[in-house]
């Protein structure tokens, strides 16, 4: 969280809305533990990370949707044979994120 404070400050000073995505659970292998945070501005600028780069693209999409809808959501990314082409961690783990507008 601490590593994204400066970017959030800048975006908010420029009047841009911000969404936060936070890792809340990791099962199996995953590079970043619970508490890893990524901030996304309403125009898609990114600070911080929540994995080794595997799911960040999909998290930006989720974050922008959350900003548009104005309500938070939980989302889970994982790997299974059924969804070999879906977004997931190449290391085989599953991560759950809480994605929310920074309106608190």
């Amino acid at each position, binding site marked *: 969280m*601490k590593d994204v404070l400066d970017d959030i*400050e800048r975006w908010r000073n420029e009047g841009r809305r911000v969404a936060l995505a936070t890792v809340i659970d990791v099962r199996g292998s995953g590079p970043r533990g619970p508490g890893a945070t990524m901030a996304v501005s309403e125009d898609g600028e990114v600070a911080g990370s929540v994995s080794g780069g595997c799911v960040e693209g999909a998290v930006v999409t989720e974050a922008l949707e959350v900003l548009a809808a104005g*309500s938070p959501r939980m989302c889970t990314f994982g790997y299974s044979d059924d969804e070999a082409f879906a977004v997931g961690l190449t290391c085989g783990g599953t991560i759950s994120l809480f994605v929310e507008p920074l309106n608190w």
Partner: protein
Amino acid sequence: MYEVLRDCLRRNEPVVLATVVDTAAATGLGAKLLVRRGGQSIGSLGHPGLDGVVGRDALGNLASGQISLRHYGPEGEIGQDAVTVFVESFSPPPQMIILGAVDFSAALASLAKMLGYRVVVCDARAVFATAQRFPDADEVVVDWPDRYLSRVAAELGARDAVCVLTHDTKFDVPAIVTALATEVGYIGAMGSRQTTERRNVRLREAGVTGDQLARVRAPIGLHIGARSPEETAVSICAEIISCQTGTDVVIPLSEGSGPIHHHGRAS
């Protein structure tokens, strides 16, 4: 609430943020409670009973620096799972105290900063212990290492590290004796095998027991063939990480099996 959280983080003040991340109710997703040291709180998770129980659990998390998902009933009942709360404790950064203002200390200070430590360099010699020589250190202290350590002894805990790089027995022995009296998680001391032998004899003369001596990593660092100050800093930090994660046997990942990632620590 965000502004209060931000200011606590900037001041390195411990704080816990609890968020409802899953709930059976139609509303309340994303509700937050911020709990500060001492127990004052801001916000609400939706029910005073839930706030009370989570507030109490949050303070427990704060002490241990943990991050966890917890389940409660809608009014904070234990053993139910209608509400899932993500409890994130933000602890102040761990400290690394480097004793001895040598070239190795400057490289170690830089790497430790990168790893998120608050770094203090201490040496009794004012000509060497200067902020100019250690631009990455948060604090450069001119004092006898053992006297400085006893001054900060109560602050040191399992996440902190003391690295003794002076390799001069008259500084090292009292500093190590003082470090051993603290709860610090890692104590390492630099020096050749010969220096280490000699220092161990002096430490035993100073009343240090075999069990206590086993707490001191000497010669400091992992055996990766490091020579330069920067390489040595990598060797020392790698040893500290392996101690903190409880990785007793250090081997190349390519020669092992089993899980790679540890999630036991707060990130």
